[in-house]
């Protein structure tokens, strides 16, 4: 071996030996001590004290304690003692075997860590609140519409109904180049705008769109803005869709679009008979107006052909339709940023609705059975239009929206009622016009001032004709007639104006509002009977020619107070109300003046992060309007006649609720327990008279009360070993109410017990199971106020639902949903059904084209039945459903 190779070899062995043996094992028993101080002789805590060898490698180390003292064992190979402390110059002292104690003074160093080179700042991307995604970077060839691209963006998700979520939070709105083109109904836009039109997607956090509110109101809202590829292009583009299915189903849709900086148009024309509901696309997903809706909540008098409510299953199971829809949304912006917007929507449909039902009405000494079997054809035609003007400047904010809607609804039905077959016709016309004006000037101080004026006018016209062979069962006119005719005409005026002043603050938020509301309603109604070409007026009353006004001046104060563990929300509205009712036919001219103080209080106390107690109290004082104060009877449908007594209907409701929530989130256990109590005092009581063919209900003056207690609890536990979540909810309600049934005062005790069990389990990466079961017992008992024999009724419902989703291949997704229900009651035989649906999607079959296959109702269930129980009435209804159907859809964009 040559010398030149031997030396590195020996060196390597030496290094290896050294590496294996830690240096500090050479430590001896005696030690080195010392104290580290600064130039002011103050001790330094935490200074690094190291013993270095001849190569300046650390062989022993410690750090100084709070008195600056340190102690180190003695090292044979120790050559230096080094003391360093950030902000001070390091000291390196040669070890002297005769010295065992070192006093070390460190001198401050002005240039701290000077030698640390800023190589690269940690990669901080400063982009503020807006994240911009270039569409070309995020889209793939399979994507057609901007909706497909949005699904790919990190942090975004689109729900089935089209709602967009950002990080799980619903976005406030979707803008096209800064404009709310769709008036908040953006669901259609994401489906029809193709990705090539959009350059980038901006996700804007803390979105505060109103310039006047700048630096005053901070929001947590997230908005999405689609930036156009070419803002000067007026080119037309869009998507089209064709679907065919068995048996006899078709869908066709075309959506032309123009998007440019000044002018934007998003429109659609569509037709289907496949159970697709277009009203879903017109759903308000974002908010068209930034303030809450202040139009009046209307209780409408609604005539109808049937006496059943629609089934509680998705519409597409039983919707036999032929729907067409045309909608168009146009926005034009001037150079001075004045925005004009026009949204118009036209919808027409021909659908059929079919049911077969039985209703039992328990009376004091009798039971009446109504049996109904009806086929109804419905032809609605609806037109909605909104015109909006907006100026959003730093000096002021102004918005005015004018809305117009018109609808015509024609029904005709053929019915078998109590073995009588007859025809019915119903026509409804409705016109509504409203204007909402909003102005917010900019003011210097912290507060926000707002002016708002809302006005609306509407008229509703309804005509019900019950034709030949219908038995009119009202004394003294009982009998068969050619036509029984009910017509109502019902105009309404409503105005609401207010000024509000808000002072935002972190701890206490104050809001004051002063306003005036005015409601005016008129009701003309007429019930007449035709036989042999002759008109006979209804003999029991003269119909209605009623006038009703309600003027209210209101002042409300709203406070939100946060204080450590305590939070409260206090609303104290005070209003002065003047209600007038004039019914010349019945010589009624009444006036009621009242001062109402209706507090709404909420207090929450957080014991800690896992436990809180919340108490709520609310007082409501509901005054009826014309729909609950008409004297002349109105035939609502062939089976019910309704009227009100000479009185202002008034209901005082006290609502109290107490909830305690307790979690042990580290163990993934969650629970809440609550009790709520409602107490209602009403001045009128419902009096029902059931005869063999009709139910005549009158609200008569008789003070009465209703009580309801609800106990509820929810528990949820994640089972670590099974990796599954199990939830359990229990609810028990007890209520008491009184009413007159065929002139006998009856009290009803209603008990309701509800259990809900849910299980969520991820079986594997591709398979997910979700199971939910509901058990409901309902028990209605007559409380023994008289010595009557009165039956109690019971019903039971068991409902289970499961959902299995598979993601097997890249381009396929399969989802299966099953619903099973069993319904049982004392009166009717057991019913049940099992629905199973499957949906398969295949993306990218050809360039620009996708395919989707939907299979509905795989077990071909033909009927759906529902059981309803209410006080002394129990009913069952059977609805035919769309049988098994397969639907194949092709989507193409141009």
């Amino acid at each position, binding site marked *: 071996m040559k010398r030149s190779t031997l030396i590195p070899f020996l060196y390597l062995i030496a*290094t290896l030996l050294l*590496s294996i043996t830690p*240096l*500090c094992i050479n430590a001896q028993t005696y030690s080195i001590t010392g104290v580290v101080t600064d130039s002011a002789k103050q001790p330094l*805590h*935490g200074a*690094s004290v190291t013993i270095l060898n001849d190569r300046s*490698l*650390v062989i022993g*180390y410690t750090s100084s304690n*709070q008195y600056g003292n340190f102690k180190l064992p003695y090292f044979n190979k120790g050559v230096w003692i080094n003391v*360093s402390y*950030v*902000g001070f110059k390091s000291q390196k002292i040669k070890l002297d075997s005769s010295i065992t104690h070192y006093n070390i003074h460190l001198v401050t160093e002005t240039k701290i*860590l000077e030698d*640390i*080179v800023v*190589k*690269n700042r*940690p990669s901080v991307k*400063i982009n503020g*609140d*807006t994240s911009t995604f270039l569409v070309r970077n*995020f889209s*793939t060839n399979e994507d057609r519409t901007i909706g497909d691209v949005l699904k*790919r963006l*990190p*942090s975004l998700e689109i729900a089935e109904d089209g709602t967009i*979520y950002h990080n799980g*939070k*619903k976005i406030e709105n979707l803008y096209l180049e*800064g404009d709310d083109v769709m008036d*908040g109904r953006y669901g259609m836009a994401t489906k029809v705008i193709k990705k090539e039109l959009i350059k980038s997607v901006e996700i*804007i956090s*803390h*979105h*505060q*769109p*109103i310039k006047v509110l700048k630096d005053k109101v901070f*929001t947590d809202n997230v*908005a999405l803005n689609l930036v156009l590829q070419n803002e000067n292009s007026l080119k037309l583009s869009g998507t089209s869709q064709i679907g065919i299915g068995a048996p006899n189903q078709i869908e066709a849709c075309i959506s032309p679009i123009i998007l440019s900086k000044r002018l934007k148009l998003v429109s659609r024309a569509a037709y289907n008979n496949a159970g697709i509901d277009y009203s879903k696309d017109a759903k308000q997903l974002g*908010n*068209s107006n*930034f303030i809450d809706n202040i139009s009046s909540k209307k209780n409408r008098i609604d005539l109808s052909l049937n006496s059943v409510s629609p089934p509680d299953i998705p519409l597409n199971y039983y919707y036999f339709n032929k729907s067409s829809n045309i909608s168009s949304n146009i926005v034009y912006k001037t150079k001075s940023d004045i925005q004009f917007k026009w949204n118009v929507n036209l919808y027409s449909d021909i659908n059929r609705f079919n049911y077969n039902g039985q209703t039992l009405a328990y009376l004091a000494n009798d039971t009446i059975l109504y049996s109904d079997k009806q086929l109804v054809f419905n032809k609605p035609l609806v037109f909605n239009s909104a015109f909006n003007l*907006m100026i959003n400047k730093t000096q002021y904010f102004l918005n005015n929206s004018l809305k117009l809607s018109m609808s015509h609804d024609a029904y005709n039905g053929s019915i078998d009622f109590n073995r009588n077959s007859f025809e019915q016709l119903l026509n409804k016309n409705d016109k509504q016009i409203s204007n909402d004006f909003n102005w917010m000037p900019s003011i210097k101080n912290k507060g926000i001032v707002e002016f708002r004026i809302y006005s609306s006018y509407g008229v509703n016209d309804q005509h019900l004709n019950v034709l030949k062979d219908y038995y009119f069962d009202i004394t003294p006119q009982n009998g068969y007639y050619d036509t029984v005719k009910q017509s109502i005409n019902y105009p309404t005026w409503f105005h609401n104006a207010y000024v509000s002043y808000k002072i935002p603050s972190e701890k206490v938020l104050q809001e004051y509002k002063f306003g005036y509301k005015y409601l005016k309603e008129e009701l003309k109604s007429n019930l007449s009977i035709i036989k042999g070409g002759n008109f006979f007026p209804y003999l029991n009353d003269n119909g209605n020619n009623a006038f009703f006004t309600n003027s209210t001046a209101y002042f409300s104060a709203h406070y939100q107070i946060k204080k450590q563990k305590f939070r409260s929300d206090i609303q104290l509205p005070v209003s002065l109300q003047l209600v007038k009712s004039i019914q010349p036919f019945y010589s009624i001219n009444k006036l009621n003046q009242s001062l109402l103080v209706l507090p709404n209080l909420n207090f929450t106390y957080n014991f800690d*992060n*896992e436990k809180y107690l919340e108490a709520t109290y609310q007082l409501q004082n509901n005054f009826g309007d014309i729909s609950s104060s008409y004297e002349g009877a109105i035939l609502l449908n062939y089976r019910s006649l309704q009227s009100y007594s000479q009185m202002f209907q008034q209901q005082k409701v006290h609502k109290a609720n107490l909830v305690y929530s307790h979690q042990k989130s*580290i*163990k*993934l256990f*969650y629970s809440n327990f609550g009790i709520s109590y409602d107490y209602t005092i009403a001045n009128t009581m419902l009096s029902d008279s059931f005869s063999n063919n009709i139910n005549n209900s009158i609200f008569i003056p008789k003070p009465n009360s209703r009580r309801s207690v609800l106990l509820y609890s929810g528990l949820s*536990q994640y089972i*670590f070993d099974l*990796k*599954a*979540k199990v939830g359990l909810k229990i609810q028990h309600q007890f209520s008491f109410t009184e009413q007159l049934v065929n002139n006998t005062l009856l009290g009803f005790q209603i008990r309701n017990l509800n259990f809900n069990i849910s299980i*969520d*389990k*991820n079986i594997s*990466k591709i398979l997910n199971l979700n199971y939910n079961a509901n058990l409901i017992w309902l028990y209605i008992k007559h409380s023994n106020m008289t010595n009557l024999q009165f039956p109690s009724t019971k019903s039971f419902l068991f409902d289970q639902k499961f959902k299995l989703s598979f993601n097997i291949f890249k381009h396929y997704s399969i989802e299966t949903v099953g619903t099973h229900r069993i319904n049982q009651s004392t009166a009717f035989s057991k019913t049940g059904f099992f629905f199973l649906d499957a949906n398969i999607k295949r993306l990218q079959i050809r360039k620009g084209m996708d395919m989707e296959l939907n299979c509905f109702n795989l077990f071909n269930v033909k009927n759906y039945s529902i059981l309803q129980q209410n006080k002394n009435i129990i009913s069952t209804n059977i609805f035919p459903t769309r049988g098994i159907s397969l639907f194949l859809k092709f989507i193409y964009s141009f």
Partner: protein
Amino acid sequence: MKISAQFLAFLLFSNFIFSQDVVKLNVLYQFSYVRDLENKDVPYKNNMILSIGQGSSRYCTEKLFNDNDKKILEARKKEQERLMSMPLASIPTVAGGPMLTIGKSGPIVTEEIVKSSLSKKISIETILGLKSYHTETDLQEIEWAVFPEIKKIGNYDCQKAIGKFGGRTYEAWFTKEIPYQDGPWKLHGLPGLILEAHDTANEISFIFKEISKNDDPNIFTNSFFNSQFSIATNLEDLNIARKAFEVDPEGVMSAQAPNARLYIRNIDNPSDKAVQKIKKYNPMELK
């Protein structure tokens, strides 16, 4: 005179206790961790930032650091002004849903560790799904043995040390050029900053990426979390919950927020919403 000096010392010391400790350095590490022993090829990876002050440090995910960056918070305010030119929309708040952030190796865990070398305390803040948990324990001393091996990491001469922590043996590389007795995660106690560390099974590693100096005297090593909103727990329970979350994040989140729609965000591949399942969980601390 003596009293006032003691008082000054007290002030200085109390500053450390209350963590008003100015950040001197930010060190970026790449953290890699074989969380699933059945899937060693795709370790969990995250960038972590250690912010060091005189007597304490904060170690957290880069995202958490960036989200709390002062410059970003300022930029956010400026952006707000620009946004005023946006059109009208709604003020009403909307209900949000929980978000689950995942990567190709499974759920991302947001974690923060504040170590105080003076008070010898370590406080851990972890977000598991929707909840944030904290626990504070004594800073565990690590018995390090130093070795004469050296290597250059970045521009720094580092020396090797071997120590045992949490049932694993770590090989760490520290530099006495940066005299902080600190390091990534729970590792600390060498006479210089630990720039690189990995366990002997090569399942966990911390690799130095960048270092930068902080000159802003108003940035402290304080926790980014407000302990008021976080749930106090102990280390044992936290580790059980952490395991449950890492193994079945969707299940844990839907247990935390029943009835809420869960939203999955995949930072590695946004269109893939399927969560990588962990078959054989490998905890960081074996005991």
